[in-house]
């Protein structure tokens, strides 16, 4: 704390960071929020690719449980003896797939990337409140990803108790090979990740509250910022509880305590008899994080989508205040509904009723959000570019996945649906696909801001159509498997005659998953190719109102070359009647409007100093070269 504050105070005394930047300070230990966001994004994409490849491996296993794939022996070694995946490694794969996707891709990769990029730019700040803590946040995240991946190479394999790591399975190394060193690494990695998440979230909250530019009232913030603010608050309040919970689990595993263990004989539990705890306690502590975590994933995606839909529909977002209200309602309610993951885990049935009530209430703000999106599309002028398509795809997944949530939130119905493929289908639609779509939609939209170049549109469109079709093909049929009572986390269904009817469906799902996987490679190609070879971006390529598009294309440490522009209006003035253009940036005052802070009449936009731009490519290249060589 002290070091950080001292540092940032020092920085305030300097000018806009025009001090010397070396390669290390610019690209590695960068304290510039834009560079940190790129670091988050690229780490997230790498982790996402790994997670996706894992899912393809176990999809192959599920589709052809009896067939041997020599390639598995090549890449997995002892875990793929004879070309077949070891059942223990299958469980490890699903565990690590879940963990990577939930925490490393959709929490850090999505919220970390876009909170870092957009919060300072959209509220009009030079940087985060504490750039130093921000940098630490990334490097803690990086460390935790390395730890998580390194658990793939330890004796006994990585953690394999499912991403929810319920003890005793995760606490007893004898129960499953993955509960040895792999599980320890998982817990250590998660604790480091929690630290990273807290450092980031505290920074986001302080920036949004304290660092807004003049005129940027709370009610003038774009919905993205609202979403990020509440995501950060959710993280701040829920991650510590997982921290406490996993601390106790570490003690149970390594120091012979028994907080989560009861009536475990000594021979199973490393020579010490365990009496007195309760596994349910861990589940409560875990899901106190786990459920807000779902919204930590989903809210940023919804925020990005709100912005993208409004911009590309050329229409103000419908019901701005209702949207903020529903974000708040979702955030608040998410803390009191975690028990719906535990209806049949031996929890008090009375508490089941309480949680069921809360859970189904969450559907109301979600419905409001959906209808408001539809209201925004209505009579709009939709530019169907890739980001808009992905945003529409998100709304579609949000509806499909949200509606199946109504089944699962119902305690009675959960009796037969708990831990079946219905659950898998539900959360892959609503927080897997929907959040990934939100993330990709954000990448397409803000790529020009991040890298100064445009992504290829056609590839984006192909990516979109392949992805949405394959995602629906993968996850929709799973509902029916779940309704037939097929449990999740099964290595094979060969032991059950009644599940034979699903052999073909499993193959179909796997083919669809492979198509989806290849589609992601199109995206990866597009992403990395455009980063270096894409078309040069103009300053405001999507004709958007928000403040980030008023910064120059070439990145400055400090964002704006001169004074930070002031804000005079809300961010959704699209297609205002009586204006010749269909967008009015937030920094444009109306004729005769007073500057809310200086109390002086402001000059109309046309007469004001033009937004500073560096239009000539030569100028951009020259200044870039100068910065790289260390002259500037």
């Amino acid at each position, binding site marked *: 704390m002290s070091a950080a504050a001292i540092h940032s105070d020092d920085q305030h005394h300097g000018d806009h960071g025009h001090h010397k930047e070396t390669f290390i300070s610019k690209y590695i230990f960068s304290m510039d929020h834009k560079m940190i966001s790129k670091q988050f994004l690229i780490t997230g994409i790498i982790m996402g690719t790994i997670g996706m490849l894992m899912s393809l491996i176990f999809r192959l296993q599920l589709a052809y449980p009896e067939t041997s794939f020599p390639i598995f022996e090549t890449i997995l070694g002892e875990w793929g003896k004879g070309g077949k995946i070891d059942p223990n490694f299958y469980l490890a794969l699903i565990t690590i797939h879940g963990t990577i996707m939930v925490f490393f891709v959709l929490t850090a990769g999505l919220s970390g990337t876009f909170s870092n990029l957009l919060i300072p730019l959209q509220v009009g700040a030079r940087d985060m409140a504490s750039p130093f803590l921000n940098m630490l946040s990334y490097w803690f995240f990086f460390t935790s990803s390395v730890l998580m991946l390194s658990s793939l190479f330890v004796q006994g394999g990585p953690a394999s108790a499912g991403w929810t790591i319920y003890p005793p399975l995760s606490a007893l190394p004898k129960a499953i090979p993955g509960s040895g060193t792999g599980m320890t690494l998982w817990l250590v990695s998660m604790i480091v990740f929690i630290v990273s998440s807290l450092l980031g979230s505290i920074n986001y909250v302080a920036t949004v509250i304290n660092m807004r530019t003049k005129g940027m009232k709370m009610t003038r913030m774009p919905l993205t910022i609202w979403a990020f603010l509440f995501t950060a608050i959710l993280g701040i309040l829920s991650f510590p509880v997982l921290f406490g919970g996993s601390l106790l689990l570490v003690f149970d595993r390594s120091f012979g305590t028994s907080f989560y*263990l009861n009536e475990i004989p000594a021979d199973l539990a490393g020579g010490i008899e365990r009496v007195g705890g309760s596994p349910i306690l861990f589940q409560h502590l875990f899901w106190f994080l786990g459920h807000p975590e779902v919204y930590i994933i989903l809210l940023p995606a919804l925020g990005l989508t709100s912005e993208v839909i409004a911009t590309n529909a050329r229409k103000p977002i419908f019901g701005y205040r209702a949207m903020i209200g529903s974000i708040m309602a979702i955030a608040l309610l998410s803390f009191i509904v975690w028990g719906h993951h535990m209806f049949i885990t031996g929890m008090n049935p009375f508490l089941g009723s309480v949680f069921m009530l809360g859970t189904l209430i969450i559907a109301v703000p979600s419905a409001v959000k959906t209808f408001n999106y539809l209201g925004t599309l209505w009579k709009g002028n939709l530019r169907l570019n890739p980001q808009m398509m992905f945003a529409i795809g998100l709304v579609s997944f949000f509806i499909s996945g949200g509606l199946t949530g109504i089944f699962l939130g119902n305690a009675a119905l959960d009796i037969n649906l708990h831990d079946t493929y219905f659950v898998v289908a539900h959360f892959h639609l609503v927080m897997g696909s929907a959040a990934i779509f939100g993330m990709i939609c954000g990448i397409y939209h803000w790529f020009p801001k991040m890298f100064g170049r445009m992504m290829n549109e056609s590839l984006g469109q192909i990516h979109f159509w392949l992805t949405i079709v394959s995602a629906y093909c993968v996850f929709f049929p799973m509902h029916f498997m779940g309704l037939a009572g097929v449990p999740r986390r*099964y290595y094979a269904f060969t032991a059950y005659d009644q599940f034979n009817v699903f052999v073909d469906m499993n193959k179909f799902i796997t083919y669809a998953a492979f198509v989806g996987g290849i589609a992601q490679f199109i995206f990866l190609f597009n992403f990395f190719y455009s980063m270096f070879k894409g078309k040069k971006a103009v300053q405001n390529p999507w004709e958007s109102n928000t403040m980030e598009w008023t910064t120059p294309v070439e990145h400055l440490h400090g964002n704006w070359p001169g004074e930070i522009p002031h804000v005079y209006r809300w961010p959704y003035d699209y297609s205002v009647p009586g204006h010749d253009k269909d967008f009015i940036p937030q920094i444009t005052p109306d004729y005769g409007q007073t500057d809310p802070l200086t109390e002086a009449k402001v000059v109309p936009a046309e007469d004001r100093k033009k937004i500073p731009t560096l239009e000539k490519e030569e100028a951009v290249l020259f200044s870039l070269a100068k910065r790289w060589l260390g002259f500037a």
Partner: protein
Amino acid sequence: MKHLKIKASFVLMIAMILFSSLSVFAQDMTTDAAEAAKSTASNINWLIAGIAILLVFIIGMIFDILSKVGDVQKKQVINWGKINAYLALVFLIVGMAAFAWEMVVHGKLTLFTLPSASAHADEYDNMFMITLWLTGIVFVITHILLFWYTYKYKEDKKRKALFYPDNHKLELLWTIVPAFVLTILVVRGLIVWSDMTTSKDKDAMNIEVFGYQFAWNARYSGADNKLGKYDFRQMGIVNALGVDSTKEFAGDDVITTELHIPVNKAIYLHFRAKDVIHSAYLPHFRAQMNVVPGLPTKFDFTPTLTTNEMRVKLENPNFDYILLCNKICGSAHYRMKMKVIVDTQADFDKWIKEQPALTAKGTETNSLHSFLSKENPIASN
């Protein structure tokens, strides 16, 4: 333009070289490895992967060139706005058809088309169908609107979008209507839930289901309908369940590896686990409860159809009820199951007599009821 052409042909050339060399390489591999069929399969896999990556690369290049051409010619080569609008419509129609097809064809595979096998299954199915209809209607309507709007309001340079930031009445409407619908669901759901979780029958038959890695046991409470005490310290190879036959109520207990239950009689299942959390899932009876070590859990239900009746109804002579493990518990989780057989009362009585009780002595009459001692779950007595 000239620059572009050079670049494009250069890229294509590289692609061609790569592709041809790869195919030659692949041919070599296949001829060489004719004797080792197994490694061929591996090489073909690699080949497929290589070709797929190459295809992605080529497609990427083509579209990159196309867009660059478009930039030079100052017009769009492909008008994605229009294409997407039509594709959205196609997606909507095909998707809805697929949705209907799934509901009809795959819907038949679900449990809900089977005759209900327990007393509360009808109530459950009823609740499910109400939820399905309500959500189904919302699903169809919202998706039609979503993709119809995408088609209808595609960009038209001449048109300007309607400035319509909010409408409080409309927003209130679509807050209150979902709230109302959900109230119905909540109220009904609470009724069904409390029906299912409160045991109605005092004379229910107490059976203990014991889960361990990776099998199940059942313990019948015998004539006294009371399960004997257990001690987890005694759980071992000889005495897997840790039940001491000399203890109170334990003598007449019967331990089996199959779960036989009499039809039309309330069954009170007590669950106990040895090592990790399992979940006893009886899909046909709409019954499930986690089996937690050190935390007694329970579930009660009344089967209404015997296995034989069900076989006749389904015209499937191989049909069996099952109890399967539904909570990740280790490497053989996927085949941890127990056969469940619903018998008529007469058949059940006959079967249970054939099973050996823990001791022949019968019930110990030790009525000392220590307040704090660890006792096995016994139904409210």
